């Protein structure tokens, strides 16, 4: 029997959207197991009533992405989903640079364009967004929370000043704070410097 390192394997990125209902994850995971696959990472959320899920998968069988998506759509609970699939080898992965992780928060009245200006400002400065959450609250306020990677050589104060200025034009309060302050105040184990 070949050892795991000798067995060829094929990686995929899967994106699934649907109207939310119980049983979608169960159906997907049953299908993946049936096809001999393994879930390597997963992120799922329900946004405004819509089910959204992303997964990275690994299989010993070399499926065409469309075939893999079609196979998964046969599972009970998954039939009404839309599935997008790509080989990981088709997506270039940049080397992960050394970075400090900061949390960006922005609050203000909901209006179009806020995510765009903030994301553009970050992109223009080479700041990568690694996680993003945004939601319109019941009172009409829009909340945006992003985890971003800042080059340790850059002064976050300069970046914050720029973001504050951009946010103010939209009536938004924008903050940029190192991740450790949130770890320190919410988790039992204190963060290392």
């Amino acid at each position, binding site marked *: 029997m070949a050892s795991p390192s000798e067995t060829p394997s094929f990686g995929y990125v899967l994106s699934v959207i649907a109207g939310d209902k119980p049983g979608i994850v169960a159906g997907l995971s049953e299908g993946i197991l049936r096809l001999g696959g393994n879930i390597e990472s997963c992120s799922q959320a329900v946004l405004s009533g819509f089910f959204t899920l992303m997964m990275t998968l690994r299989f010993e069988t070399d499926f065409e992405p469309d075939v893999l998506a079609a196979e998964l759509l046969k599972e009970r609970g998954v039939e009404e989903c839309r599935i997008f699939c790509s080989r990981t080898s088709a997506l270039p992965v940049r080397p992960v640079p050394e970075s400090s992780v900061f949390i960006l928060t922005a609050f203000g009245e909901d209006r179009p364009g806020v995510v765009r200006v903030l994301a553009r400002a970050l992109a223009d400065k080479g700041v990568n967004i690694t996680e993003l959450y945004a939601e319109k609250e019941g009172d009409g306020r829009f909340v945006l929370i992003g985890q971003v990677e800042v080059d340790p050589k850059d002064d976050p*104060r300069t970046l914050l000043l720029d973001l504050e200025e951009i946010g103010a034009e939209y009536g938004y309060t924008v903050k940029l704070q190192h991740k450790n302050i949130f*770890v*320190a105040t919410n988790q039992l184990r204190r963060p290392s410097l």
Partner: protein
Amino acid sequence: MLRTEEILSTIRMLHAEHLDVRAVTLALNLNDCAGSNPDQLVKKVHNKILRYAGRLVEICDMVGAKYGIPVTNKRIAISPASNLLAGHGPACAVELAGALDRAAKDCRVDFVGGFSALVQKGISEGDRVLLDALPEVLSQTDRVCASVNAASRKAGINMDALARLGEIIPAVAEADRARHGFAAAKLVVFANIPEDNPFMAGAYMGAGEPEVTVNIGVSGPGVVDSALKRRIASAREAGQKLTLTDLAEEIKLSSFRVTRVGELIGREVADILGIPFGIVDLSLAPTPTIGDSIGEILKTLGLARIGAPGSTAAIAMLNDAVKKGGLFASSSVGGLSGAFIPVSEDAALADAVAQKHLVLEKLEAMTSVCSVGLDMILIPGDTPPATISAVMADEMAIGVINNKTTATRLVPVPGAKAGDLVHFGGLFGHSPVLEVRNVGVSEEFVRFGGRIPAPLQSLGN
């Protein structure tokens, strides 16, 4: 992985509830600056402070910006100045204070503490020089803070020192008459002074500490008060019955988070400066800003009037819960670590004094269960020295018998009588002058002098 609610609750705590790092205090041992030549002494002191603390403000601002938390005050605490004054005269004491003041300004810190003497068991030559110079030093410098430890659990209460301080404190205030005696607000008299207190005016670097260290004072009455209000409101909405046990738990949780903020900032500042981190002092230190008040917390806990029966019990619960939450958050807790009740610095307490709901005797009772003592108490300028000494002796007794730190920061406002309103401004706030009852009848007691012996260490009922 951080959850959205965690991020939002931290944001709320930092930006809507007045959480700040109240003080980053660099503590520095200056004993190696001692010498017989006063000019060399003050030069060495100035140079050493600048060598270690020259970048303190810049680094605090940088770290504060990184975490989105203001470091409100950057300060320096030194080893007791009286150690440097043995063999010198009063002129050297004034010169030394001037050098400390200049060093503080050059480093852009707001205060330098440690113009101090430890006299709980007796007054040495250096201590005497320092004590005699206090009126001139405190009225002529802007940033120098002084403290005197006049009592301890092991030594008892030095009544000779308190008798002398009863004369010195009005003299300090009188020397600063133009500012309503403000100079006396920079002088604290302690029982059981902590060696690592980062809060002014009582910060100094005690024996047994390293050459240099960074101590942190966090605050956060606003955070605690808001957390309690939210808890009470949500319970009401849900028709839930809340008990004081539930509220104590809420205070603990807030204290945990506040302490963690301080420790994070302190460790990083120390790391960048390349010196050891000392302690985080998790005191709740109010400011005159509305919403940043210990008095408001007492009101939230159900006391319509601060000073009413129940006030001592409420502040005892607050003080204890703050310690419990903080101690779980950090293994480096020290300093004073409790709830402060400085009257002029807490708008709600000052208001309670103005309404005559809160009087000196009730404040004294409250200080038996919280930190730190009769703090920022304005008294009539004509209060007799022996009465001032006796007020201090009462407060020292609470500390010595209960094995805790207590202190007095009394300001006999020149020319003022009970009820007059005095404004100091800034963090020092405003307060009516408190009535001191039974004045002029403690002379004989104080005149006996000597030392009230150290108390029994057992049979403590």
